């Protein structure tokens, strides 16, 4: 018997049509998936009860079954033995060119001729960052399907506030590879604020302090009318909980007198350090015991076992300089946003390292407010994303609907001299419409080319080109006399339409573009084809489904046509032939041969062409019946 969840009043869906949606925190070190169950937002655990999925993917060589890819804890455990085929922190490479990533990576990057996308060479073939991320998303998607008991209609995926369009695009592409429809990408700090319900609270300035395993981010958000705007972000991409562990290890090394620990000893000490750090969140003191086995004994000439007590006070002295370091980006972010500390309403804590009491204290003192920390700081982003996904999936009544999207980059058009004129600035909340007046450049100019671009740079060549169209039929006038109003409009789904109108004559022209969708479906298709075999399988499966849907559509259309006109327009023999073709197509469509279905559809198309022609003629005759030729010309 199916398991049901409690819906909001009046929102019960028909059986088998639950609008299941999830929020995904696709993190650098760990990823999570969360969903709303009976109104309660929770992260979903795997079969072992683990909520955090290490963002690590191990690619294995092809065996008789095919390629095998391991994601998560097991991949992380295997990383030390198979470092080059085990990809971690792939988020750092998303939407990046070869030059950006090569310098700080152990992986073997290759760049194919004619492709801007760098790939990592593994035993299973060359993989792009998008494909690696897709593996993580697939694992989370599978977990969600099992936990929620049905197919997902989509996901809200979080990205850092500082991600540019290419990085956001790469994230969307990864979801597409994973077969996961993206309801929306939202900024991680925004998700954290949503988790605390700040979106339904008072308007004002909110700070999100995110100290993760390896990175620190600070974001200053402004809430107006249910929409979060990112005022500024700052951070340190090499400061996090790992640094706290290293500080404790340094202390242990100083205490024990070990000078040069080897990798395996360091591993042991790091684990001890992490355990001590975690213990000191609750306790005032913790005991650190270190036993060296014989193998390691030579590293110290005196003893092979130590025992120290580390008090929270000592620990805080050790890590204080590191925590204080996070205040530098905090000040910078405040300055960039032109915000003073007393304007801040709330501070939200995100990231496991914010469990450390000293972090809370220093952050609280700096922002002069008690930071919000009730929700598990590891899960808060995923939970916020899940809440947003639930709203976007339509499981709430309309008054709860909120839109919190902003344009990540400015939109504008090209003016003379190859300059970009911004019409809608970045961080503008959508939906939005903005208009700007332009004029002609030459005497008697009767047309104008409009080139729509996206980006923050001044030169067109540095911006991304989105679309071009022309406004023709401007009456000849002296240069500068025409008034051409160009209107940019972005709807709630991020679809941009641009229209241009000459005010004196009224001539106009317009175009629709998707500003956030840089890659066309065709390009993605090509990427899919290029990807290796298991992605190929996904593609084949999708093609098959599409073909099956098409076959079904053809069958239904033909049956309806036969029902309506079969008797009138076809001989018994013809009816029989078509019926037989329909039956054959239905049967083939049940199978799993995409190509066969396609060929059969084409064949049916040919068989029924004559029938279609006759129907067309018949309906034209019907439309024309009783009308005089003269009437038809009006």
């Amino acid at each position, binding site marked *: *018997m199916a*398991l*049901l969840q*409690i819906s*909001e009043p009046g929102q*019960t869906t*028909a*059986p088998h049509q639950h609008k299941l949606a999830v929020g995904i925190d696709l993190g650098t070190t760990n990823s999570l998936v969360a969903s709303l169950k009976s109104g309660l937002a929770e992260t*979903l655990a795997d079969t072992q009860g683990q909520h955090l999925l290490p963002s690590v993917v191990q690619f294995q060589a092809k065996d008789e079954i095919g390629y095998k890819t391991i994601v998560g804890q097991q991949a992380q455990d295997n990383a030390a033995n198979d470092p080059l085929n085990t990809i971690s922190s792939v988020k750092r490479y998303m939407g990046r060119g070869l030059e950006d990533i090569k310098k700080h990576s152990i992986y073997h990057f290759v760049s194919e001729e004619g492709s801007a996308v760098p790939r990592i060479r593994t035993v299973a073939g060359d993989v792009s960052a998008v494909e690696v991320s897709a593996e993580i998303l697939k694992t989370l998607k599978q977990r969600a399907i099992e936990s929620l008991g049905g197919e997902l209609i989509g996901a809200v995926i979080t990205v850092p506030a500082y991600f540019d369009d290419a990085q956001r695009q790469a994230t969307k592409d990864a979801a597409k590879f994973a077969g996961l429809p993206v309801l929306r990408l939202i900024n991680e700090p925004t998700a954290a604020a949503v988790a605390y319900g700040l979106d339904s609270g008072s308007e004002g300035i909110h700070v999100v302090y995110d100290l993760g395993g390896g990175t620190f981010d600070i974001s200053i958000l402004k809430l107006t009318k249910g929409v979060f705007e990112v005022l500024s972000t700052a951070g340190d991409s090499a400061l996090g909980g790992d640094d706290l562990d290293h500080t404790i290890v340094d202390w242990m090394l100083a205490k024990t007198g070990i000078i040069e620990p080897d990798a395996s000893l360091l591993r042991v000490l790091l684990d001890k350090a992490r355990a001590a750090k975690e213990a000191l969140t609750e306790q005032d003191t913790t005991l650190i015991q270190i036993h060296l086995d014989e193998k390691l004994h030579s590293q110290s000439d005196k003893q092979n076992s130590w025992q120290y007590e580390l008090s929270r006070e000592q620990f805080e002295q050790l890590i204080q300089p590191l925590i204080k370091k996070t205040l530098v980006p905090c000040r910078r972010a405040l300055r960039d946003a032109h915000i003073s500390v007393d304007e801040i309403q709330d501070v939200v804590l995100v990231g496991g390292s914010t469990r450390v009491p000293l972090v809370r204290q220093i952050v609280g003192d700096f922002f002069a407010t008690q930071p919000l920390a009730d929700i598990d700081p590891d899960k808060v982003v995923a939970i916020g994303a899940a809440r947003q996904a639930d709203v976007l999936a339509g499981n709430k009544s309309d008054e709860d609907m909120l839109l919190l999207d902003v344009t990540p980059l400015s939109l504008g058009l090209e003016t003379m001299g190859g300059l970009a004129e911004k019409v809608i600035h970045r961080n503008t909340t959508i939906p939005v419409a903005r208009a700007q007046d332009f004029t002609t450049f030459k005497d008697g100019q009767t047309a104008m080319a409009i080139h729509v671009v996206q980006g923050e740079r001044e030169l067109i060549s540095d911006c991304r080109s989105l679309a071009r169209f022309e406004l023709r039929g401007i009456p000849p006038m002296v240069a500068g006399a025409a008034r051409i109003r160009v209107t940019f409009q972005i709807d709630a789904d991020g679809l941009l339409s641009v229209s241009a109108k000459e005010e004196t004559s009224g001539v106009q022209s317009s175009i629709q573009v998707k500003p956030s969708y840089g890659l066309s479906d065709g390009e993605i298709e090509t990427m899919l084809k290029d990807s290796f075999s298991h992605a190929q399988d996904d593609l084949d499966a999708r093609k098959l489904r599409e073909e099956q849907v098409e076959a079904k559509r053809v069958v239904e259309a033909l049956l309806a046509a036969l029902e309506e006109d079969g008797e009138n327009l076809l001989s018994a023999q013809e009816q029989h032939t078509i019926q037989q073709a329909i039956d054959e197509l239905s049967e083939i469509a049940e199978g799993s041969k995409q190509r066969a279905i396609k060929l059969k559809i084409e064949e049916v198309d040919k068989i029924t062409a004559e029938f279609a022609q006759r129907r067309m003629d018949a309906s034209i005759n019907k439309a024309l019946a009783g009308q005089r030729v003269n009437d038809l010309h009006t």
Partner: protein
Amino acid sequence: MAITLTEAAADHVIRFIENRGKGEALRLGVKTNGCSGMGYVLEFADTVEEEDNVFEDKGVKIIVDPKSLLYIDGTELDYGREGLNEGFKFNNPNVKDACGCGESFNV
């Protein structure tokens, strides 16, 4: 007859209502749709209509409209787990046959 809950179901309902922060009852009912005729309604209730039947079991208030009651009277609401999935189950004595997954049913 009446509508009852198992301990597990009652615990979860209380927790979910508490988390939601408003409404204090659970609405059970049926809707005519689904592959086998009828589907269940399981919702938080913010309002009680005049004709509604109100039951109470293990500290949970349950509201059922009179039409639905014909189809679900005697139902015991349970909470269970299947693999990673968990949720509510209707143990409905009126059901004659249900679709494969039991999400919709016939009486």
